[in-house]
């Protein structure tokens, strides 16, 4: 396959040499010319599913674009497609500057390469997260497209013997009006490949955008609608074994001994092996492995196991919150302001552990080869995984090939800083000496119970008010495990004992309060924790936005007007808030038993406001009927993808607002599947309207920012409807 694609070696060598010259000088941002030396593209993967015939590449101007002999254009996407639409978004950027027709654009997932496919906000490190995909790629991918276009135009100018600036490219057609000559990209590809790399490229003026800001249908719709999209779960290699793992029922426990006698009697089982953290059963298929694992008896050594529960942790966290913590932000003189205040209000907030519960439970396919290792999975922290796997196997990172497949959701989970499920798969393959490829499959129960949760948090908030009821002092203490401690991100994002991901959304509140103190306690526990869609904002937004609402009510002011007064100098917060309020009909009367609430929050440089309407149905139950969302995410590259992320991101947060909760009891996880870890179902989904603020700012992310806003908006609406102020998630009215 690789030979077929890299057919013309002499031309390719020529390209690599000539392009390298210009690369470092002008276009180093995307390193054209450093085309992949070896072809690491997966046999089956995004854009390849369904037996699609891959056309020969005629022109590879850089690491992101191939113009093929069938006139299709393949855009290589460095980020993981997990539903957020990055395949569509990044391809839009290339197509815009290339002036390609959207229909001729194909997408393909990039191989692991920290230099070529660097996340420019992190690197050199390839990875997807923090809603950075569009933001870090916006200029890079447009430049890639513009450079390719420049070379195609130069080729046409040469061939037709006309001036390059008389040539127009539109919808994939290169056209010279005066001579009435036109050509498709493929026809110019060979000559284009011989043109020098442009010293600089001009990017379009935003007013000339033809695709950006318009509707470009998703590139992954068709194969996800007809069942041909290939996920990790769907990979099948010759001789492959399926592995299920019995994990420690308590965090920190170890295997003392195990009895595999009944396991080996199960038809289809081939191996039972101990690995770090459990025992793996390998079999010819899933069901045999599952039956084998069910027959496994393990005696656990609990001497170092964690044996506490959520209740004990909460009691401990409450005690901690009474003491000063590490200072995340300190403005003015908060202590003095509280001492001289006539009126103070305080509140405390509780947040449970949460599972990500992506529809595709964690899984990974591994094949060990004489010269390295090859992986197939929804890779999200590609470079970190590559390094971790190399270390485990005694290889160089470049000997670890990663085929980045579609992920069946992630919400942060697949970006595990410890590469947990990836290393588990590799450990199993290593334990059987690589005699067969291994597909590690987690059951839903494994996915729910084997760890990595949004940490449990406890917040204490206190405000001192002036005579008008506005806050003059604000003290916010947060207690909860650090996500980043012990990870590769610690040195970057943990400063003076403050994990930025624990306090984001609280330490940077936009409200004008002269005396402001935000503090953090980060207790160390053996419960594995990880970022969960919107990370710190998943809890800080609730505490801040419901407390502000409470202050507004205490001041006898309208919550919208109260926020407006405190948000002077924050036009983007104000912009989304006013838009959502206007579209929702803020201020219009609500029937008895109904309530309307608002919340506004910035995360990942995107601003989201939501106005929610709720209805009480009896003493304790309620429904969320309508959500009006306004978002300012800079230039709206794909408005429909933005709308989809607002709808879905809000829904993801609504599940946690209404019912999702992981509870620890005696060191174990009480929930196991969707019957007791309940998530949003269609009958709980409100009607949703999304309004996008027109902006000329560079685009920022949309995958996460809608998630944290819904819970406070619902709680604030519930207060209006019921008079009950709720301080814990999931939200529960008392009778």
């Amino acid at each position, binding site marked *: 396959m690789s030979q077929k694609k890299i057919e013309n070696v002499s031309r390719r060598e020529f390209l690599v040499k000539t392009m390298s010259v210009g690369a470092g000088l002008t276009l180093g941002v995307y390193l054209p010319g450093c085309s992949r030396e070896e072809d690491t593209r997966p046999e089956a993967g995004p854009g390849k599913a369904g037996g699609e015939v891959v056309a020969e590449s005629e022109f590879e101007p850089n690491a992101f674009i191939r113009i093929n002999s069938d006139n299709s254009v393949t855009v290589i996407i460095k980020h993981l497609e997990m539903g957020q639409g990055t395949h569509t978004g990044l391809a839009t950027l290339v197509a815009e500057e290339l002036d390609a027709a959207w229909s001729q654009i194909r997408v393909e997932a990039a191989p692991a390469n920290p230099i070529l496919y660097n996340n420019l906000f992190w690197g050199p490190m390839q990875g997807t997260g923090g809603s950075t995909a569009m933001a870090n790629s916006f200029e890079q991918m447009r430049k890639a497209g513009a450079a390719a276009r420049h070379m195609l135009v130069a080729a046409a100018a040469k061939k037709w013997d006309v001036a390059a600036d008389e040539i127009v490219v539109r919808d994939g057609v290169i056209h010279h009006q005066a001579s009435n000559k036109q050509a498709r990209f493929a026809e110019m590809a060979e000559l284009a490949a011989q043109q020098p790399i442009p010293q600089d490229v001009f990017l379009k003026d935003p007013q000339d955008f033809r695709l950006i800001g318009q509707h470009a249908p998703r590139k992954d719709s068709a194969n996800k609608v007809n069942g041909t999209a290939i996920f990790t779960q769907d990979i099948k290699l010759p001789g492959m074994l399926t592995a299920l793992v019995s994990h420690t029922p308590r965090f920190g426990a170890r295997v003392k001994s195990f009895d595999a006698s009944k396991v080996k009697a199960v038809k289809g089982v081939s191996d039972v092996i101990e690995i770090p953290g459990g025992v793996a059963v390998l079999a010819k298929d899933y069901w045999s492995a599952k039956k084998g694992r069910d027959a496994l008896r393990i005696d656990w050594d609990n001497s170092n196991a964690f044996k506490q529960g959520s209740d004990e942790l909460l009691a401990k966290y409450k005690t901690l919150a009474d003491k000063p913590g590490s200072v995340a932000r300190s403005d003015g003189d908060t202590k003095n302001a509280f001492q001289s205040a006539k009126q103070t209000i305080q509140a405390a907030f509780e947040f449970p552990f949460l599972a990500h519960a992506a529809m595709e439970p964690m899984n990974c396919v591994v094949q060990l080869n004489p010269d390295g290792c090859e992986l197939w999975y929804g890779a999200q922290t590609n470079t970190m995984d590559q390094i971790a796997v190399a270390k485990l196997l005694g290889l160089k990172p470049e000997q670890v090939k990663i085929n980045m497949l*579609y992920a069946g959701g992630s919400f942060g989970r697949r970006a595990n800083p410890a590469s947990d499920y990836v290393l588990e798969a590799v450990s199993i393959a290593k334990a059987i000496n690589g005699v067969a490829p291994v597909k590690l499959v987690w059951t839903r129960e494994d996915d729910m119970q084997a760890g990595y949760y949004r940490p449990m948090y406890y917040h204490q908030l206190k405000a001192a008010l002036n005579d008008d009821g506005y806050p003059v002092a604000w003290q916010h203490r947060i207690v909860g495990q650090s996500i980043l401690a012990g990870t590769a991100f610690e040195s970057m994002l943990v400063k003076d004992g403050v994990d930025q991901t624990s306090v984001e959304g609280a330490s940077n509140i936009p409200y004008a309060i002269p005396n402001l103190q935000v503090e953090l306690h980060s207790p160390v526990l053996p419960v594995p924790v990880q970022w969960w869609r919107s990370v710190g904002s998943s809890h800080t937004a609730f505490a801040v936005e419901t407390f502000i609402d409470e202050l507004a009510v205490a001041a006898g002011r309208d919550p919208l007007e109260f926020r407006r007064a405190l948000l002077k100098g924050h036009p983007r917060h104000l912009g989304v808030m006013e838009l959502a309020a206007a579209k929702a009909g803020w201020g219009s009367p609500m029937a008895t038993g109904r309530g309307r609430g608002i919340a506004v929050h910035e995360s990942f440089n995107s601003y989201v406001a939501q106005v929610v309407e709720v209805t009480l149905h009896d003493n304790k139950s309620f429904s969320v009927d309508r959500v009006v969302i306004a978002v300012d995410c800079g230039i709206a590259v794909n408005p429909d993808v933005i709308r989809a992320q607002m709808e879905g991101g809000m829904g993801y947060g609504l599940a946690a607002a209404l019912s999702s909760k992981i509870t620890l009891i005696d060191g174990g996880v009480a929930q196991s599947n969707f019957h007791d870890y309940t998530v949003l179902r269609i009958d709980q989904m409100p009607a949703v309207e999304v309004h996008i603020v027109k902006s000329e700012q560079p685009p920022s992310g949309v995958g996460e920012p809608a998630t944290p806003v819904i819970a406070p908006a619902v709680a604030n609406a519930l207060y209006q409807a019921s008079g009950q102020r709720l301080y814990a998630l999931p939200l529960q009215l008392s009778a």
Partner: protein
Amino acid sequence: MIQLTVNGTQHKLDVEPDTPLLWAIRDTLGLTGTKYGCGMSLCGSCTVHVDGVAMRSCALPVSALNGKSITTIEGLNSRTARAVQSAWEKLDVVQCGYCQSGQIMSAIGLLEQNKSPSDEDIDGAMNGNICRCNTYVRIRAAIKEAVRSLV
């Protein structure tokens, strides 16, 4: 041996009788469009049609299905199916896509029984299918779009 007709083709499956239909479809027949999500008929990712009725395949042993006719996402070709899949594409319903085979099988199952479902009918029929990307707003809209196109 279990005898099943899958997407119009007869198969004699040499699998353990307690094997859930899902794994016979995926691992034995190699049809991977039907997904595993929970193993307890809670999430609907594994939805297929058994004799034309949408059912969860993850906890349905093949021994109970001898002689039955199964349709998976790969075997769809009815007018209703085409309408539903076209509506799903037209409205760009999918995000991660993992649950969508199951969603589509349930939606077709609904429309085969009820040509003009109310909002409550839609929510009722689709309530067993979880989408963690929360594409529900578009699922509702796509079902209505399919209904319109079938008139």
